């Protein structure tokens, strides 16, 4: 391509100068603040707390607010949710007997939480939920055998909904067979310093 000797040397000079231009940019980054963080060990606050409130993580259900309308189950394109409502024929009171969320299928699209009229179904900021057994990824918000009366919203009053970014009580999320998994496993395998025990694990 270079026809003359002059072109030949110009090319060599251009190659060198342009490389130095690039290296100057790289060099300048030696004196700038690093942009990377070391996940998950050496950060001050857990990532879960740094996420914006809109973040769509694992689904969370406050069964106490559920009115048993079944909308979430119908809107879910994948059938992640399975609910069951029974009615007591004497008192006409309706009870929720089952509220399972299969997070192994969930693609966190947000359609169910948007359609929930009371805000009982919502996304948490949890996202770490690896487990060895797929069945463990079915989170059960109602224990088998338990009957929770449906929520009756008062007309004209705003539904309280869930406080943003605050994990709800996980009392209903006990895992039975097989194998018993502690609820912390859903919160994430990585435990934070303020959780107490695992600090020794990290130092080892």
């Amino acid at each position: 391509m270079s026809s003359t000797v002059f072109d030949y040397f110009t090319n060599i000079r251009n190659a060198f100068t342009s490389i130095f231009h690039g290296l100057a940019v790289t060099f300048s980054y030696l004196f700038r603040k690093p942009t990377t963080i070391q996940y998950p060990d050496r950060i001050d606050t857990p990532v879960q707390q740094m996420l914006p409130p809109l973040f769509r993580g694992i689904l969370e259900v406050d069964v106490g607010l559920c009115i048993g309308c079944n909308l979430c189950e119908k809107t879910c394109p994948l059938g992640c949710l399975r609910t069951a409502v029974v009615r007591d024929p004497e008192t006409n009171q309706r009870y929720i007997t089952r509220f399972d969320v299969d997070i192994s299928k969930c693609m966190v699209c947000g359609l169910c939480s948007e359609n929930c009229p009371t805000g009982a179904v919502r996304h948490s900021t949890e996202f770490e939920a690896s487990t060895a057994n797929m069945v463990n990824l079915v989170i059960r918000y109602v224990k088998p055998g338990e009957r929770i009366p449906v929520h009756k919203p008062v007309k004209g009053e705003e539904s309280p909904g869930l406080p943003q970014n605050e994990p709800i009580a996980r009392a209903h999320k006990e895992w039975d067979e097989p194998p018993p998994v502690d609820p912390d496993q859903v919160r994430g395998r990585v435990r934070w310093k303020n959780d107490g025990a695992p600090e020794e694990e990290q130092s080892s």
Partner: protein
Amino acid sequence: MTQLILEDQHGETTMVNMGPQHPSTHGVINLRLLLQGEVIAKIDPIVGFLHRSIEKLGEMTPYPGFLPYTDRVDYLSAMFGNQVYCMAVEELLGVEVPRRAEYLRVIACELNRIISHLIAVGTMAMDLGAFTPFLHAIRERETVNDFMERICGARINYSYMRIGGVPRDLEPGLDKDILKFLDRFEKFIPEFNRLITGNEIFVRRLIDLAVIPAADAISCGLSGPNLRSSGVDYDLRRDRPYSAYPEFEFRVVTGEGYRGQTGDCYARYWVRIDEMLESAKIVRQALLGLPEGDVKAKVPRKITPPKGEVYSAVESSRGEMGCYLVSDGGEQPLRVRFRTGSFTAMTVLPKIVPGLMVADLTAFFGSLDVVAPEIDR
């Protein structure tokens, strides 16, 4: 180039499988090459490894429920999949999207275009052996990903748009943060250019390589940056107006006027760099002129569009993304078809590649910015 093949013909040809697991194919694509020496005599792209039958799923899912699947058509620019599907259903339903929602869609889409092009230029440099630019591109991309997270709650698979608008308004204060980022981003691009674009070795590697003539580009259905870099001045945002794009001023970047020939790999690279700046311009205009009003039109919960067909198309970051939607009046579409830029970009390979070296194929393939899941869907 053809001469080179003829000289090399000693009756010896080698068959090489480039892929399915090859770092430069950006996904699972098998390029079956017939080599004569180091020159490619014939190429046969084998695709379909990532076929997830999204179109069949569309026929089995109700209209609103199909939206999350449209993210997965092209995971690097999920917003466009959302938009093209929503536009198709809205056109069938006859729903008018509020103006504010259109503006929010434009903001989200153009931010998505920026981060998608950042990946494109970054990985292209990485394919040619320069790793640093990729990290710089990823750093900027992470910043935008954080904005995306604040706009819609997810970093990659956004599921942001809904039929009839967008589900929620911008978070207060987010517009100022985005504007601040755009100021920084416009300074980042010259720095990026100093880092790699002007690098003489990089330039010499790309100019005059794999020139796609305009006639071939049109015939092979190339679209988006690949079509424009061949000198064809066509942009769906301007020439087939949709959403709120007619209200913004932007330049349609074509591949003319850069070093080397129009339609070579370097032109394709430059078109993407310049398009990022144009997108930044559009985002700024949209944020500053954001109209007041609702963000979602009233749409029934059960969506049953009347019988009909519609073809909607948006200018995605990989070219024209089209959605051919056929409704039979039921709750589920009769047919959803996605026409994607990567699929048509693959058809140009058998025309252009014969005569190139294997190492040049990497550069050429990187410059086409093909995403494998988008080819297969």
